[in-house]
């Protein structure tokens, strides 16, 4: 293995964006036929480096050597012709096109003057399917496929272009544990037939499971080259963060109080109009954290939106103490003491063009605290409030007039957390509260959530990271296909939770 020639060598890569040095003299090399993991926190510069390798970005300086030859990567066309293929974190698929059209795009078989040849497209895909064992229906509409199959289509697309070096950017982020296992076996098969794989991830367990060697990046620099079999989770985490990391949350046992929120047989539809919640019932108590575990897309997002008053329920009831809040809108619910940290901080949690001060009153601009007669804004009160939040929640910013867009992910998330917790809510709905933020911010937000609980608030937590749910929650509700299939204690083994999350493990008639 160690004698294998270098498939990719990147030397002294520098890439500057306005205000950020995304890649700072990065050296990176991958041997032919290995699975090489590139790890680092969000914003460490992994995706930038790979986009440079794929020709989407051009480095300010540095050199790229592919199979021993120095190359100039003018664009993806060159990368493709050099045998490099990339499966992006956000799939490069066109939902309204068929699977076949998506795979063929850019290398379409034609007949006559310029007609797209569907028959030959189908044959080519069947051929790839046979060779790599990746079954796909070429005529299915891409948007109708589950994420796992979409990712498979991305891999087939790359193979169709004859790639020998495959870059996979955070490929498991959207997959179920089962789908991840399938992906890993596909990757192992690909290596057997001579392909080289670069695997970008921040999930250390996976990295240890699948890779041969590891390159660690932090703040635009390479901080370590590791051999997978000679390292462990703690060592990688320490390199990634630059200090020792506590991989668990410190908290006292819960002392749950009375019922804060009662959800009875709740049903709701997704954006596409299909049932997303199919009768959800549970009780949430004061001074406890109820975590919802589940593979994304099983109704968690819709549940949080219904509870926050943003999505309409199609049936069932939500009681806050004894008050029916099922049909209340977001404002009324907030006044009643329900706070909501939405899962997509850049899309729904913040107005990115607004300053911290402006974001700190989002949705509260008509309250007596921030305006006279619900109309004329109390600018001084708003600024005082924003300053207090910045101080109490350790938001790192030169001023409250900085646009949210210009904050780091962690500080953006802190602005939302501060706004929602700053009003001392009775019930806190936290959806993916630490997604995509750095470890420092994760630790801070975790402490705040626990503090909120200790002060008596009821916390409902949704997270795609099973580790997060397990370490924060006092009870865990497992959600599968729009239902709560089981309520478990936080020390339930991961294997059992994983099984429940994919529809197994319950006795018939349970739920």
């Amino acid at each position, binding site marked *: 293995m160690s004698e294998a020639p270098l498939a990719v060598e990147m030397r002294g890569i520098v890439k500057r964006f306005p205000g950020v040095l995304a890649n700072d003299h990065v050296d990176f090399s991958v041997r032919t036929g290995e699975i090489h993991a590139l790890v680092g926190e969000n914003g460490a510069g992994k995706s930038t480096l790979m986009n440079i390798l794929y020709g989407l970005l051009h480095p300010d300086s540095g050199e790229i050597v592919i199979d021993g030859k120095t190359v100039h990567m003018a664009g993806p066309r060159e990368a493709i012709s050099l045998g490099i293929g990339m499966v992006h974190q956000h799939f490069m698929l066109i939902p309204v096109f068929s699977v076949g059209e998506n795979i063929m795009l850019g290398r379409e078989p034609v007949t006559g003057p310029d007609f797209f040849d569907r028959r030959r497209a189908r044959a080519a895909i069947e051929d790839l399917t046979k060779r790599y064992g990746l079954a796909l229906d070429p005529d299915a509409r891409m948007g109708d496929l589950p994420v796992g199959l979409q990712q498979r289509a991305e891999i087939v697309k790359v193979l169709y272009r004859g790639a020998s070096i495959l870059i996979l950017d955070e490929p498991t982020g959207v997959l179920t544990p089962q789908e991840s296992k399938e992906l890993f076996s596909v990757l192992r098969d690909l290596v057997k037939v001579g392909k080289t794989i670069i695997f970008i991830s921040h999930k250390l367990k996976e990295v240890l499971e699948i890779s041969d060697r590891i390159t660690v990046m932090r703040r635009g620099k390479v901080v370590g080259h590791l051999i997978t079999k000679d390292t462990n989770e703690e060592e990688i985490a320490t390199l990634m963060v630059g200090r020792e990391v506590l991989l668990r949350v410190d908290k006292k046992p819960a002392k749950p109080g009375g019922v804060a929120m009662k959800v009875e047989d709740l049903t709701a539809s997704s*954006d596409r109009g299909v049932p997303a919640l199919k009768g959800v019932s549970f009780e949430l108590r004061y001074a406890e954290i109820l975590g919802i575990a589940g593979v994304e897309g099983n109704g968690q997002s819709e549940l949080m939106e219904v509870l*926050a*008053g*943003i999505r309409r329920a199609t049936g069932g009831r939500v009681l806050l103490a004894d008050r029916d809040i099922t049909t209340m*809108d*977001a*404002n009324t619910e*907030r006044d009643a003491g329900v706070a*909501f940290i*939405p899962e997509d901080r850049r*899309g*729904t*949690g*913040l*107005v*990115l*063009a*607004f300053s911290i001060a*402006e974001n700190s*009153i*989002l*949705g*509260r*601009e*008509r309250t007596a605290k*921030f*305006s006279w007669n*619900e*109309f*004329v*804004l109390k*600018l001084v009160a708003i600024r005082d409030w924003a300053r207090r939040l910045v101080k109490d929640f350790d938001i790192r910013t030169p001023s409250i007039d900085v646009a949210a867009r210009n904050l780091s992910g962690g500080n953006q998330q802190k602005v939302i957390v501060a706004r929602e917790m700053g009003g001392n809510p009775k019930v806190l709905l936290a959806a993916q509260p630490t997604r995509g933020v750095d470890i420092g911010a994760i630790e801070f937000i975790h402490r705040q959530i626990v503090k909120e609980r200790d002060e008596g608030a009821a916390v409902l937590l949704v997270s795609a990271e099973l580790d997060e749910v397990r370490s924060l929650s006092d009870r865990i509700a497992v959600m599968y296909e729009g239902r709560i299939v089981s309520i478990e204690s936080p020390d339930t083994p991961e294997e059992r939770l994983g099984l429940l999350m994919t529809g197994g493990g319950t006795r018939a008639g349970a739920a």
Partner: protein
Amino acid sequence: MPLGSVVLAFVVGAVIVAVTGGNPFGAYGALICGGFGIACNGENPALQVSNTIVFIIPLITTGVAVALPFRANLFNIGAEGQLIAGSIACTAIGIKFSGLPTPILLPMVLVGGMVAGALWAGVAGVLKATVGAHEVVTTIMMNYIAQWLLRYLIIGGPLQLGPGTSKSQPIGPGARLATILPADNSLIIFGLPASVYRVHTGLLIAIAAAAVFAFLLWRTSLGYEIRAVGQSQKAARYAGVSVRRTIIVTMLIAGAFSGLAGAVQIAGVDHNLTDKYFSDTTGFDAIAVALLGLGSGVGIVLAAILFGALHAGGQVMQADAGISSNLVLILQALILFSIAANFVGAIRQRIPGLAGRPTAMPPELPPSAPLMSEAAEPPPA
């Protein structure tokens, strides 16, 4: 940056004049005289300034009517139709109640104009908020409908002055805005009788409109919501802001401003509807005013001064230098290109020594939504 765009547009405009065999210096000289009363050759400077201000007044008010929806990510191309609706309402009321005294009739015609403009814009607002019809298309259609309605009303319709004419009866004296200088022929000001200066008290209304705009946008919860909806409909909705209501209210207010501009034009300058309103372009000039003014109250006033001067100057240029006043439209389009594409920024980056210096941000425009993009899913209440 805006200044650079203007300069760039004038340079390109000069090239166009020169290429087509004209004298750009003569053209711009006449333009400056007509616009600012500077460097005139026989024209009365004071009269030119007065004429320019008359052009500026509706540009400020309609500029606000375009700039406010911009903030909500709505593109109001219908200021022209709303202005016509306002002028029709003002005229109709001013004729019907021509006997009433000023303290009663003047507010009536102005408010009437605002209501009519608001209704005209409201159609687009409601269609956008309920079925997602793109406001660019609907406001353009409302422009054409307003123009044909106007033709009908003053040619053969109920407002026609008499058979064979294409104008309406004049509004009652109580419906008229006073001129700033007394309408007294014996009083000589800057060498001309005071009554030839048409500059009128609508100027105060226009400046007030710009002030109201700035206050509304930055000091009120509604303005905050308008900006939030404009920057991120989703975030606004998640925070509990009613996107539909905000869209409709924004268009109503914008229409009221345009309608006011039309009413002021009738009450302060023309006193009746005429066929010159068929070819009026104030509502389209307003788009350039709003963009060039960077959507701020002061900026809108400054941009309105520029375009008012261009229009007033264009007439002098056509008469004195023999260059079609349509050069003004060409300049206006070039300014729009230049602002939208940030040519100035691109040029600066290419000049060594200037690169890296912070350039002013382009106007804070929300990215234009694809036509009918929200069509599949009207904005939720």
